[in-house]
């Protein structure tokens, strides 16, 4: 009786629960082991890399880290990338300089559409070279408009004529519709102008507003940055940007080791991962150390100008004071800090 009794569960379900928990624990253990194994496999068999990957999974958003944690994260990345690319890779973490707000100006009359800036940017910023091929600068070939004498007085604001920005010059409108894949023998071509677009480092950036995890944010020196580790790859920012400035790593980036630029910044040109979004940062790793951005240096016609908007003697402020300036899609109130000017 007692024997039989003992076989019968006192409270129905207890035995089941026991098995359940044990099974659950066993399976959880197994799956954790599988995951760890998979993580090791995924990131290559090197132990250091696996350890770094493991630590990166539990890493906080860069903006919320303490200085110590930031240093740890940077040290981890230096270790990982040095091993991955077979050379000494430095990851800079220098913060924004005091009393500096970066601005950019591009002489739209001088640009010849040679795409030197596009490729200089790729060399500097460690973009994926192929499959996917990512480029942060886009140059659009557009038809020149015509000058209509009848519109001479239809200036803006009214009655001030062409001198204050009259619209006698009829152009195609702010459509950004033109040719992206033009490939003539030589540039510039007659009757066309070239419109390079890249991240405008908006003062009120719409991409920052939509980011659900706040991995993209505006730094005090005005540069909109991305914490690639914190990015979940939802690509909301890409659709929010009116300037088509952001790119997504649609696959595992392909960056040949010999072409990799070893001078990197955490928020700038360090190698990205599959799924992370990236964009122009005015070459954060260079400009925070006093150097011109790569595209400014590369431009063979000197159409690109860069400087501190808070300094009245800077190139950008002089251009704003002296030249005819317009902004792209200014009516969207994003307050871009990238200006187009004409002589």
């Amino acid at each position, binding site marked *: 009786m007692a024997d039989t009794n003992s076989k019968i569960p006192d409270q129905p379900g207890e035995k*089941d629960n026991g098995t359940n928990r044990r*099974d659950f624990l066993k399976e959880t253990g*197994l*799956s954790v082991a*599988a995951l760890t194994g*998979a993580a090791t*496999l*995924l990131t290559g068999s090197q132990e250091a890399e696996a350890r770094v990957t493991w630590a990166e999974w539990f890493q906080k958003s860069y903006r919320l880290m303490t200085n110590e944690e930031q240093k740890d994260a940077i040290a981890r990345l230096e270790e990982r990338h040095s091993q991955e690319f077979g*050379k000494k890779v430095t990851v800079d973490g220098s913060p924004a300089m005091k009393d500096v707000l970066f601005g950019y100006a591009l002489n739209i009359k001088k640009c*010849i*559409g*040679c*795409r*030197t800036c*596009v*490729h*200089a940017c790729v*060399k*500097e910023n460690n973009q994926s070279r*192929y*499959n996917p*091929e990512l*480029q942060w600068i*886009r140059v659009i070939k557009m*038809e020149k408009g015509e000058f209509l004498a009848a519109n001479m007085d239809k200036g803006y604001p009214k009655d001030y004529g062409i001198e204050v920005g009259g619209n006698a010059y009829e152009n195609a409108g702010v459509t950004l*519709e*033109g*040719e*992206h*894949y*033009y*490939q003539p*023998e*030589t*540039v510039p071509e007659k009757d066309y102008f070239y419109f390079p677009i890249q991240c405008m480092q908006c003062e009120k950036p719409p991409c920052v507003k939509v980011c659900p995890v706040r991995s993209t944010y505006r730094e005090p020196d005005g540069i909109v940055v991305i914490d690639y580790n914190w990015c979940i790859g939802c690509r909301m920012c890409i659709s929010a940007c009116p300037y088509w400035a952001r790119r997504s790593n649609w*696959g*595992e980036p*392909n960056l040949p080791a010999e072409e990799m630029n*070893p001078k990197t910044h955490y928020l700038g040109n360090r190698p990205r991962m599959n799924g992370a979004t990236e964009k122009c940062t005015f070459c954060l790793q260079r*400009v925070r150390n*006093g*150097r*011109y951005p790569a595209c*400014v*240096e*590369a431009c*063979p*016609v*000197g159409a690109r*100008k*860069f400087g*501190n908007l808070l*300094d009245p*003697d*800077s*190139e950008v402020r*002089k251009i704003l004071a*002296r*030249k005819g300036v317009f902004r792209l899609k200014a009516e969207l109130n994003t307050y871009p800090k990238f200006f187009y000017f004409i*002589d």
Partner: protein
Amino acid sequence: MRNIKLSRNIFYALLALLMITEIGYSQDAQPAQDEELVKDCYESREDYGYVERRDIEPALPNVICSQTTSRVLWWGDPYDGTIPLGDMPLEADYSHEEAVVTPREKQLKIFMPCTTCHNGKTVPVPKNKEPRLIQFHQDIVPNALQLMHGKGSIWCLDCHSMTNRDKLISFRAEEISLNQPQKLCGKCHGEVYRDWRDGIHGKRIGSWTKGGKKRWWVCTECHNPHTVDANIFLPIKPEPAPALPKGMKSADHEHKEYGHQ
């Protein structure tokens, strides 16, 4: 219970399969690299001086050249091989030590100084500046009677010194080094010169900071003074276009003929 267990096992199996396929998923083969690395490249003007790629430090080249257009894309050391720019006739916001240029006169030494021939004996000193046909230097000026600069109002000897051909000369008979052509050009092109001096015309590399060290491009590094009337800037070959999106066969849709407005 059994069913749940079974389905859970299937789930794990699928997960493992997914991970394996993820690891095994291989990218398309890397595009073939150019066998020979372009090492001689030009900076702005294709017919001007060339710069040779070399390593300043291990794994840090002085320049990175484009493999398709042999244009310099990137400078490892922006001040490599430069000399101080020297005085500017009017003060600009730069400090003298921090403004550098690449010397042009060194080219004369590499090839041959002009005065090897233009020494007054081999080639006599011309009597006046009147334009006339010349037998030499057709590579620079094909027809000396149609100099493509100044729309017929100036000629060779208005800029090149009659007596010392290694130097330029201003209309006030001051000799000007070929390293500093801006001193000559600025005499006529005052407005552009002012913009250049203030850094809003022309090209500079180095430090963006106020008073920071910069390499300045002088006028002739971008403009060919002998052909400016034809081309202010000589047309150059563009870098390759971006890759077409997956599945797009051609970019014909972009053209006007295609019905694109």
